[in-house]
């Protein structure tokens, strides 16, 4: 299937499947994203439920990262990027006139594709968020937060003896778990993950997938991934993007067994992407 063909299939497209859910944490309505003149997301509407893991999949360049980054307004850091439409977090529009991105990003944390620990010690990496948000009243409390976060991220046993060694000295997989620990140290409600395992080996990947599954009890998670298996393993719902359109949203099982849309089917059976 080529681009001209697929273009025809998604012209004036309305998302198929079940983009809306009942127990909503984040709901996006009619979201358009532009980079300068170029439109990267076309009229996407999607609900993300409480305590669910939603996987965003699709061919490279289709706008997964762009959509994910609208959810905590990380796109604000890109000068040319403009967002239209509404995104509600607990029924409050995060693109509202007087919304401050600082508390927003404390509520909606993010883990990036490439592990990006600060060039500081492991301890300071995890403690940074709690420090700037004033989450700990004392040194002891801060120590507790750091320990708890590292434990949740499954890194505690590996680093407990060298908390003051530089975070950049860890292996790639350890660094990514450090970044996850850093994110959950702020105690967010939603965690956004942009291909968190793309730089990792299968063992480190498995560890992080396990972690995602555990984190679901407490957090709402949106994860971008290129691995169909990963999406199938960790997510309850899956959203398929194509050329900036949100093509299909359905329970993960359904997407991978009986996809509704032709493009989704073509993608998961490996005919492009």
């Amino acid at each position, binding site marked *: 299937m080529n681009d001209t063909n697929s273009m025809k299939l998604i012209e004036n497209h309305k998302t198929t499947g079940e983009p809306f859910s009942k127990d909503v944490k984040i709901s996006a309505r009619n979201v358009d994203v532009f980079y300068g003149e170029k439109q990267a997301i076309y009229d996407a509407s999607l609900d993300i439920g409480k305590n669910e893991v939603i996987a965003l999949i699709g061919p490279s360049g289709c706008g997964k990262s762009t959509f994910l980054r609208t959810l905590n307004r990380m796109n604000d850091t890109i000068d040319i990027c403009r967002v239209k439409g509404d995104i509600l977090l607990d029924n409050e529009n995060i693109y509202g006139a007087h919304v401050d991105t*600082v508390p927003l990003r404390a509520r909606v944390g993010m883990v990036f594709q490439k592990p*990006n*620990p*600060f060039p500081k010690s492991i301890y300071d990496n995890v403690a940074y968020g709690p420090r700037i948000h004033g989450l700990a009243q004392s040194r002891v409390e801060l120590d507790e937060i750091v320990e708890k976060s590292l434990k949740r991220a499954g890194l505690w046993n590996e680093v407990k003896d060298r908390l003051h060694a530089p975070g950049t000295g860890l292996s790639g997989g350890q660094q990514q778990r450090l970044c996850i620990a850093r994110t959950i140290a702020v105690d967010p409600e939603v965690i956004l993950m942009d291909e968190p395992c793309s730089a990792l080996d299968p063992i480190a990947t498995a560890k992080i997938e396990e972690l995602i599954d555990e984190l679901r009890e407490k957090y709402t998670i949106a994860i971008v991934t290129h691995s169909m298996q990963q999406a199938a393993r960790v997510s309850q719902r899956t959203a398929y993007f194509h050329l900036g359109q949100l093509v299909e949203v359905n329970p993960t099982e359904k997407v991978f067994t009986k996809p509704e849309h032709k493009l989704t089917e073509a993608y998961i059976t490996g005919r492009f992407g």
Partner: protein
Amino acid sequence: MTKPTANTMTNNFEKNSGLTTRDKVEKSLARRRAKETRFRLYGMASVLFGVLCLIALFTDIASKGTAAFKQTSLTTSITLDGDYLNLTKDSTVDEIRFANFDGLIKRHFAKEMKPKSRSDKRELFKLLSSGAGWQIQEMLIADPTLVNSSITFELLMDDDVDQWFKHDRQLSTAETNDRLSDKQLNWLSQWIEQDRLDTHFNTLFFTNGDSREPELAGIHGAIKGTLLTLMVTLILSFPIGIAAAIYLEEFAPRNKLTEIVEININNLAAVPSIIFGLLGMAIFINIFGVSRSTPLLGGLVLTLMTLPTIIISARAAIKSVPPSIREAAYGLGASKNQVVFHHVLPLAMPGMLTGTIIGMAQALGETAPLLMIGMVAFVVDVPGFINDPSTVLPVQIFLWSDSPERAFLERTSGAILVLLSFLIVMNTTAVILRRRLERRW
């Protein structure tokens, strides 16, 4: 013709020339190696050329300049006759300043060497530095109880004697006596035989300000002036430069205005420094009434000159901070200020400091703009603070290099050596600071 794929390429080669791809690679390998070797040779040749030039420069300056660190003097025992000087052990500093030390010294040497005529006397006294009286005066000010006692000290010789003793002693009289007469040479050889004439480390060169007499001229005033000027420059240009760079890089909106500002900062870095001198004259002297020849004014002018350098290097340092670090901080909910001051600034600091030190090193060697604002004046007193008239090392070098006396030329090289060591110290500090602060990420 379309590009052949790797497979057909091999086939074509084998058909056409009977050579396999391997053979072709082997053949091209020799060519590539030769190219590499040639390039390495070019590189080595240019490095060698640079090093040789540097060595030539340094040996030339050092061979001329090190002599300036030695000064010829005559070991002299003299009685500080209280009656003649009109001084007692309880005399005040002012009384000491007005005492006739020159007369005392002349009387002493007239007695010792017994010159026959008035003109002989004059020739004898010409051998001694006109600063000799001042030497005794300083000693007495430090310790007034020396009155009426006999002291032995190193009496400064005139610069002609100094030059002859250091450089021309071995030459025959015919070659040298354009500055010293036969009689004078006779007295000098007497002193040499008595083992009284010798060279000593030239402390005065480092403790005195400028003087018309080479043997009394020193670089203390110029060094102090340089340090004060650089202090003003650093205090102004570092915070202003860093703040401007941070604002332009992190906070300024991207529009026509900031673009124009950016372009003009780059242009300013290329403006000849003398223009900054003119600008400083027009603005700081004529409008703000800052007094001329002062380190304050010099520092202001040099600030104008170094700011573009600092801003450009600071911006480059900020730009080189990996975007992933910013994203990480923003993602945790850090505010713009926190991102800049907790993450960007510490990572950019080594680059900013390097740029600043390079800018300061430029300012250290700058002469032209300072000539425009009157720092070229002849200043004897060592400046106490930034509003005292003073000169700076490069201008002092410029002034001395213009003097006809041989001893001043020697001091020119000496001062250059001092200036160069300042530069080396600054650049080494830059490298060490960089190493210290640089962190991997």
